């Protein structure tokens, strides 16, 4: 790579107006559009819900574009800050937070309620990427262990709220950085074995009864068809009854007659599967795959190690959302509160996800850092 190579050619729009990745933006736009259509049906034709979701998406897009403008250098310098902030707030949650649905996740700051764990979803890969990119690669065991401590501390705090879904996303976003930073395979395998041997410990001392129940029902939902198994029985019934072509828009009996629980939030893919059939599922998963592919391309194209690690981790975390949610609704993973990106109704997840894409665009847009 010669030093006097010409500056990369960029589209005039990108140069003049906005530093965003247009293919990714357009794909996300399409995904949001699809999300709104499915949500309209899943909410039983509620324009109110669709409107609110659209507003959140708009906020998300603005956040994405705004963050995408930040210089990678500035991001690199301040990468530890959000983590520190989120960590302090997470420590405050047990004392100053307020409860909703049996879990203490929220905190009120300047009159606005929000979840610090949501910030941690982005703060974690930022910090670990920042940390790892300052160490020699491949990451040594010692450095990896230090990173692990940084990953586990907030994760345990979130797990304690309790919020299994978010802690899963937070821990994986950190671990993906470690993985991308080239940690030796033997350590990875060793960690895998250690994780497996930790499973009984988790089962007997860490996991709560309702969490254990969710795991058990995944294996056999029929043991408690009206209780814990209900969700899975109804969601697989919705998916299965959709068939190849689906029952038609707004025609899904499982969702429209409320047999499907949480149909507009965590289980929204079942609505799509029921009304649009396997064809609809294929369209959605293809769209996701396109987004993921573009994200991987961006990650690989990032000039700095920091950028590659951060973008790669965000991409992988985005995939975790999809896999855990779609797998849970289809009954191959235990029920964990992870929303389906851009389809599930709910505010913070969309904004966080879009902000993540903003970060990715920010760190991959220029070579100045190198």
């Amino acid at each position, binding site marked *: 790579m010669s030093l006097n190579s010409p500056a990369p050619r960029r589209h005039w729009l990108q140069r003049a107006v906005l530093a965003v990745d247009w293919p990714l933006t357009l794909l996300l736009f399409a995904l949001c559009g699809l999300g709104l259509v499915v949500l309209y049906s899943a909410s039983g034709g509620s324009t109110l819900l669709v409107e609110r979701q659209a507003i959140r998406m708009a906020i998300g897009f603005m956040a994405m574009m705004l963050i995408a403008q930040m210089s990678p250098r500035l991001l690199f310098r301040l990468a530890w800050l959000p983590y520190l902030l989120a960590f302090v707030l997470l420590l405050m949650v047990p004392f100053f937070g307020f409860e909703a649905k049996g879990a203490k996740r929220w905190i009120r700051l300047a009159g606005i309620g929000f979840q610090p764990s949501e910030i941690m979803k982005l703060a974690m890969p930022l910090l670990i990427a920042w940390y790892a990119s300052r160490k020699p690669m491949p990451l040594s065991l010692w450095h990896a262990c230090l990173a692990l401590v940084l990953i586990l501390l907030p994760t345990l705090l979130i797990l304690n709220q309790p919020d299994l879904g978010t802690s899963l996303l937070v821990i994986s976003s950190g671990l993906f950085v470690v993985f991308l930073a080239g940690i030796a395979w033997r350590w990875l395998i060793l960690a895998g074995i250690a994780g497996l041997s930790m499973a009984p410990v988790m089962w007997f001392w860490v996991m709560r009864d309702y969490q254990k129940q969710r795991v058990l029902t995944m294996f056999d939902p029929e043991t408690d068809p009206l209780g814990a198994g209900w969700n899975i029985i109804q969601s697989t019934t919705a998916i299965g009854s959709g068939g190849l072509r689906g029952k038609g828009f707004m025609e899904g009996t499982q969702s429209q007659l409320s*047999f499907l629980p949480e149909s507009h939030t965590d289980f929204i893919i079942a609505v799509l599967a029921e009304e649009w059939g396997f064809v609809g599922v294929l369209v959605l998963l293809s769209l996701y795959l396109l987004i993921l592919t573009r994200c*991987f391309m961006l990650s690989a194209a990032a000039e700095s190690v920091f950028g590659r690690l951060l973008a790669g981790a965000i991409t992988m975390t985005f995939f975790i959302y999809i896999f855990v949610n*779609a797998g849970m609704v289809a009954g191959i993973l235990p029920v964990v509160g992870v929303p389906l990106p851009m389809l599930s109704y709910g505010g913070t997840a969309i904004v966080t996800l879009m902000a993540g894409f903003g970060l990715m665009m920010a760190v991959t847009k220029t070579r100045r850092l190198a």
Partner: protein
Amino acid sequence: MVQSQIQEKRIVFNRLWLAFALVVVLLVLLCYRYFHLQVVQHEGFATKSERNRVELIPIPPRRGLIYDRHGRLLAENRPSHQLVLVPELVQDLPQLLQDLQQLIQLDDNQIQVFYQRLSRARRPHSPVVLRDGLDDSEMAALALERHNLRGVDTQATLVRYYPYGELFAHSVGYVGRINEEEMRVLDRGRYAGMDVIGKVGVERTYEDVLHGTPGFRKVETNVHGRIIRELERKPPIPGQDLILHLDVDVQRAAFDAMKTRERRGAVVAIEVETGGIVAMLSAPSYDPNLFVSGIPASVFNPLRDSIDVPFLDRAARGIYPPGSTVKPFVGLAGLEQGVVNWQTTIRDPGFYRLPNEDRVFYNWTWATRRGGAGDRVDMVQAIAESNNTYFWDLAYNMTLEPMHEMYDKFGFGRNLALDVFRPAAGLNPSRQWKRQHRQLPWFAGDTLNTAVGQGFMLATPLQIASATNILANEGVVVHPRLLKNTHSGELPLIIPEPEVIQLSNSDDWQQMFAAMRQTVHGARGTARPHIQSPEYDIAAKTGTAQAVSRPDGSERMDPKTLEERQRSHALFNAFAPARDPKISIAVVVDNGESGGRAGGPIAKEVLDAFLLGPPEARLGPHLNNQERFRP
């Protein structure tokens, strides 16, 4: 520096490729899972989702109505209001039930039944009946408190109603709630959405016809069981309406006749030509309406335990020794066998002694007849004054078998009735029967007892009436039946081709009629003092049957009651008009002692009602029957 940069880039690059590959593999896996659910297992899930949403709600059919022979309703369906609860909407059930008890009449028994219904499998959000038959004031009270009573509702239903109450309790019977035992055996599909079934009487015998076929509504329901829309509807097929031979006027005459005399017993009246049962009464009776929506134990138990056993259908299930009412049949057997003829006379010393035996059978006339012993008695007189000696002598000479055979032809010891609810068969004894059941040989004395309807012989009032009717028909074995017709004209009943009892001398029929006429109209007739009948001739026979010495429940009776219950039963059978019989009748008065005195006047009132019309009609044409008998 550049070297390490390149190495770093390679490491991350490799890992990114690996991650991408992992992502693709997992996405394919996910795709496969959805493919498996949506394409491979589609059919099973489609059925499951269909079962989720589609519900079949049965629509109960209207139960067939029951009319008497003149089109008066004996059993109808009246609109009624039920109090129902939707348990899903009730927050505090015990408290709600307590509140309701303040508003309406609701006893613990009803609450208990409610909890039983609640425990059965049911569709969510479907109402559960708490009480039937709300009256207007209760409806008003509920309407006022409605806003405080979440989950409480009223709904209109049809409830069986018997306008004549206790008049037809045994014959028409009643419907009642389907019990657990019936639930096991009956066809659930045919009783979908229904909670009553015919229990006794016509309601039971013709249950299949009256019942109808339920329809259904195919509805789409949401997860709460709430109906979203109707997909399909199949209307129910109402049950058939039945027209019975029963006649309200005749039945009422029988009922009143028993009631005013404070008698227990039975009356069965049969139309000669058709065998149609015009009146079938068992007294005392009870109100069948009590059973329709569940009879409280406080009402049921005293009725069940009453020494008057009102639940026993004396007409079809009460078995009595028929006594002297059978003498015409024995007489016909004797004539047929040539043992006697109409000119045969015997000398009646007032008793009968079997040859080679010391035992003496005393004729009841010995003590009462002014002429005393020593009269010469022929068949006509023996019938009219019910002379035992004549029939003992006849029976001894004839032996048991011809008599048994004649009894059998007239329907004793078997059931001729086509559609009476569970009639008793009585007993027409034979040598074989005695050997089997008593492990004893048949004695000549048994033959004598059988000849006067005593000893082992048992018959129901229905059988006596039926036998009398065959006699009135000159031997045509007409089967008694309640059903006259249905509205569709289709008879759910096979009427057998009647057999005919052939007598070698067919004049014997009319001769016997004339003899029986003497019972009422002859100088020495046993019923003569008790029946005045200027309008038409009656051919009759009286009888007396010994009551059991220790009647059921006798341990609870005071001596006076016990003495009364040990008196003989009075029997009376007849047909009229004697020359051209239209109606046959049997009357049994429990502990009535004298057939002529106790049974005669009752029979007369019933015959009058049939032959002359109800008392009101006899006074003048201005009274409208239909109006009079509307409740």
